[in-house]
């Protein structure tokens, strides 16, 4: 049974409101009573607005239409009803007639002994008038006199007899409602030119929820299977929720940017120091203090988190000693000059970077809970379904095998769909760039931003993004739909030293090439900024540098470098080929050479040790591109991971985590986003899992109740991709070998071997390695293993993870040979 209880006054203090709140609480096991305020309903006027009712009236109309009955808490002003209540009754009896044949219970409280008796009598007459035509529970006059003294501090009625009488009245009302609903459901004929049915038709959106045919029902739906989504799904499941986790990417390509990231998680052990550091990173922007506290508190607990929830032996890159820790040295505190920097640490689940180890762990947590979490790959989310009245998010439209499906989320929806690195329009609109080359997932298309906007979310950090790679966060230019190749360390060394320089669109230099970027940010007059993007930046170098590049194993073998290299005998010719002014480019090189000779570079203060005079020719140019590693823009959220509207109020049942609306603003410290995925993913998942009944509108609630009584629809006909292990067939002398160490997850091989463990054939049955080098490894290495009859063949450079995974899978198979 669902009732709405109209608080019959617009004042802040009201004992009638207290009375209704008490009833809602006291009778919660018998009925859901939703309090409705009338404060925002304008004064009734038959002429204004001219043709249509105000939106507040429509909302109330919808609520009344959907309620089984209405309780009115009626104060008394001047021996009569308050005008604000009468105004509501006028609205509800002029163009629309939602109260027609609606069972009504009148209650009233007043400061004096009469308990609003005169007001109640008048309201009774009004409700009985032909325009209103409500059916009022006869007798059962509940008159709460001396109401200022009637309640205790907890809002309960003090007097036991009064409660007894209220219970009796309410039970009579329940009976009255049951009897009446059995008799008739159809609205009576009215004098209005618009019937209730017409009203419902005209206000379709108000009833969409009721009309929806749900294809499947879950407690929590998580959109996006990356680090944040996997975390949210896992913690929602641990809190008892039945979870659906969807991702737009095909199986093996899920993981968002988490799978491509260095796997380093921001952490620390000194709350105050770390907070100081994060405030400095954000400066000069402001960030909600509670958000920072939540985030920093989470980072201080990361080591425990990895132990407790991910069963890992966490590694501290600042404090632990192990081989290979040098690679992360420069990014443990990317802004070492900021106060508090020395407290920042990076944590991993084992000793290693860029190997998807954290991602694999997070993914396994989901696989382990396949009884609670269903997964769908290649299934993009299209739209959130929002209750028009309460604004609560009740479900999601997803696209599964080209069919749109309505998925109900009883308790919450988590947006964890990553950034907008691959959405050209957003990149132009928010980042002001013609093109940015993604380094991470190509499935991050900013779909969550649009979906959040549609349901009224506020946005934040839209202009923040990070780059990584060569120079100021660049990669060798690639085709529009390709990922850029991330190169750092030795490759950056060779490109930022000697007779080589970078020019922007006009052929002039625009930054200090030898200064390493901090996630794409370079020094900018005391601050650190991602430089203004150039449409066609080029590296210009001479033959000596060319020879050095050819010695670099990775650069020299990289196709985008080899194919796009431009060679010219003169600067003039080179200028023509790269579309810059000849004189300007000449001047640029003259200045550079002079600086090298004078051992002082006055334009950008590049370290003189890194300068070398250009040879006479030939000259080379290679097109570069600004990379985008991650974006931070998305729906604004609070410390409970609730998505907020522009008034900073949570949109009920909607949560977000990860890169979509990330907390990191302005300067970015590596590990920040992964920390965010773990910290806010957990909060989002847990909050989404909490069952909610308080703020749901009736349509949603009523069919929820029905469904709760029946079994869940026969588990789901849409299919579940969260399979723990696939079976593969084997013939004579064939063995299946597996490794979970691939970038994209499992690598499965079928080995054909004789009894002496000679490798006859290696077939790859399953892999989801990333494009280019990973695939190259899986193509070439099996052949080589057969030819050389050994597992330990040379790894393909740049694909050490995929190579290792393949070797380990073959070894696994070989071990099975008796």
């Amino acid at each position, binding site marked *: 049974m669902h009732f709405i209880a109209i608080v019959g*006054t*617009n*004042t*802040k*203090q009201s004992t009638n409101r207290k009375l209704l709140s008490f009833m809602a609480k006291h009778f919660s096991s018998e009925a859901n009573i939703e309090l409705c305020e009338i*404060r925002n309903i*304008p*004064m*009734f*006027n*038959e*002429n204004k607005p001219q043709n249509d009712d105000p939106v507040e009236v429509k909302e109330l109309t919808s609520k009344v239409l959907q309620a089984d009955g209405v309780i009115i808490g009626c104060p008394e*002003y*001047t*021996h*009569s*009803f*308050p*005008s*604000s*209540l*009468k*105004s509501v*009754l*006028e609205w509800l*009896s002029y163009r629309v007639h939602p109260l027609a044949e609606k069972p009504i219970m009148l209650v009233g409280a007043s400061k004096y002994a009469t308990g609003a008796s*005169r007001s109640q009598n*008048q309201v009774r*007459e*009004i409700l*009985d*008038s032909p*325009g*209103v035509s409500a059916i009022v529970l006869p007798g059962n006059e509940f008159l709460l006199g001396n109401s200022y003294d009637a309640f205790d501090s907890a809002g309960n009625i003090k007097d036991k007899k009064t409660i007894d009488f209220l219970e009796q009245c309410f039970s009579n009302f329940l009976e009255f409602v049951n009897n009446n609903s059995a008799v008739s459901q159809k609205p009576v004929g009215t004098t209005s030119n618009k019937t209730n049915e017409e009203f419902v038709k005209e206000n379709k959106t108000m009833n969409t929820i009721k009309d929806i045919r749900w294809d499947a029902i879950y407690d929590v739906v998580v959109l996006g299977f990356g680090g944040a989504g996997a975390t949210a799904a896992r913690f929602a499941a641990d809190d008892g929720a039945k979870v659906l986790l969807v991702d737009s990417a095909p199986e093996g390509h899920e993981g968002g940017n988490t799978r491509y990231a260095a796997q380093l998680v921001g952490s620390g052990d000194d709350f105050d120091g770390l907070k100081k550091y994060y405030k400095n990173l954000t400066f000069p922007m402001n960030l909600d203090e509670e958000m920072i506290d939540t985030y920093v508190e989470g980072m201080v607990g990361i080591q425990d988190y990895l132990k407790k929830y991910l069963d890992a032996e966490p590694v501290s890159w600042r404090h632990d000693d192990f081989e290979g820790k040098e690679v992360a040295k420069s990014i443990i505190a990317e802004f070492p000059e900021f106060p508090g920097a020395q407290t920042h640490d990076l944590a991993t689940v084992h000793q290693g970077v860029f190997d998807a180890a954290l991602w694999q762990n997070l993914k396994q947590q989901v696989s382990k809970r396949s009884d609670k979490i269903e997964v769908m790959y290649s299934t993009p989310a299209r739209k959130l379904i929002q209750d028009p009245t309460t604004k609560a998010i009740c479900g999601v439209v997803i696209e599964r095998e080209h069919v749109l499906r309505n998925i109900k989320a009883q308790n919450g929806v988590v947006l964890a769909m990553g950034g907008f690195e691959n959405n050209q329009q957003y990149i132009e609109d928010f980042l002001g760039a013609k093109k940015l080359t993604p380094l991470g997932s190509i499935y991050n298309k900013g779909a969550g931003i649009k979906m959040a906007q549609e349901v009224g979310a506020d946005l934040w950090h839209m202009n923040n993004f990070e780059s990584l790679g060569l120079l100021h966060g660049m990669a060798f230019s690639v085709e529009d739909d390709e990922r850029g190749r991330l190169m750092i360390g030795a490759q950056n060394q060779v490109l930022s030293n000697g007779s080589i320089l970078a020019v922007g669109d006009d052929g002039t230099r625009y930054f200090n090439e030898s200064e390493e970027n901090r996630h794409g940010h370079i020094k900018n007059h005391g601050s650190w900024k991602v430089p203004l993007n150039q449409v066609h930046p080029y590296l210009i170098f001479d033959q000596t540098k060319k020879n050095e590049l050819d010695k670099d194993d990775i650069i020299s073998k990289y196709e985008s470098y080899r194919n796009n290299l431009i060679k010219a005998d003169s600067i003039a010719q080179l200028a023509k080929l790269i579309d810059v002014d000849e004189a300007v480019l000449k001047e640029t090189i003259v200045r550079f050479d002079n600086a090298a000779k004078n051992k002082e570079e006055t334009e950008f203060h590049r370290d003189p040790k890194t300068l070398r005079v250009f040879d006479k020719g030939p000259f080379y140019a290679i097109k570069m591109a600004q990379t985008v590693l991650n974006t931070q823009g998305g729906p604004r959220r609070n410390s409970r991971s609730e998505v907020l509207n522009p008034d900073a109020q949570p949109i009920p049942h909607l949560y977000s985590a990860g890169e979509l609306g990330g907390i990191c603003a302005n300067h970015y410290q590596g590990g920040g986003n992964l920390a965010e995925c773990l910290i806010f993913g957990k909060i989002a998942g847990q909050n989404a899992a909490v069952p909610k009944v308080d703020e749901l509108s009736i349509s949603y609630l009523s069919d929820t109740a029905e469904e709760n009584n029946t079994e869940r629809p026969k588990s789901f006909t849409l299919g579940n991709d969260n399979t723990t292990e696939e079976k593969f067939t084997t013939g004579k002398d064939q063995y299946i070998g597996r490794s979970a160490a691939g970038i994209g997850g499992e690598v499965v091989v079928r080995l054909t071997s004789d009894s002496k463990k000679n490798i006859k054939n290696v077939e790859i049955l399953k892999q989801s390695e990333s494009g280019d080098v990973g695939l190259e490894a899986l193509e070439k290495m099996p052949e080589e293993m057969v030819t050389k009859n050994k597992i330990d063949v040379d790894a393909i450079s740049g694909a050490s993870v995929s190579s290792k995974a393949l070797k380990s899978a073959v070894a696994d198979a070989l071990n099975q040979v008796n």
Partner: protein
Amino acid sequence: MNFVAIEGTNADFSYNRFLLHYIRNHFVSKHVIEVCEIANLPVFNADLDVKKQPVVLELAKRVEKSDGVIIATPEYDHSIPAVLKSTIEWLSYQLNSFSKKPVFIIGASYGPQGSARAQLHLRQILSSPDVMANVLPGNEFLLGNVTQQFDDEQNLKDAAIIEKLEVSFNDFITYTSTFKK
């Protein structure tokens, strides 16, 4: 004498407004009757300070300075319009504009009853201790079937009705005079 006549609705078109204008014109030789509209008054809210409501204060001043008030009420859902109730609430909550003020209730309606039920509610409301108006007893002026009552110049057509109005109005003058002494 000086009277304030309150038009009890915020509707653009109202026969009650015709009625008040007719009364103003009909008795203009002897009395000043100022017709006041209430459409621009804010919605009454007990949390708001009336001192910050200039429109309300303006009406209150006129009511307080007048010798008596005529209220024309339509009938909405068997009672008075919310906007009229709101006006009375404003003038009686932090103010006492109606206290002991002679009031003459009239009303027009499309049906034959002439807003009889709304007038009864209005009488109860005005007589409540918070408002404490002196409502003219008896003399119910109920103008039913209102679409047929006015001619093209918006004057009442029916001589018997005009006479009834004059009798009631004269009673109101007498009643008001007793309070003036």
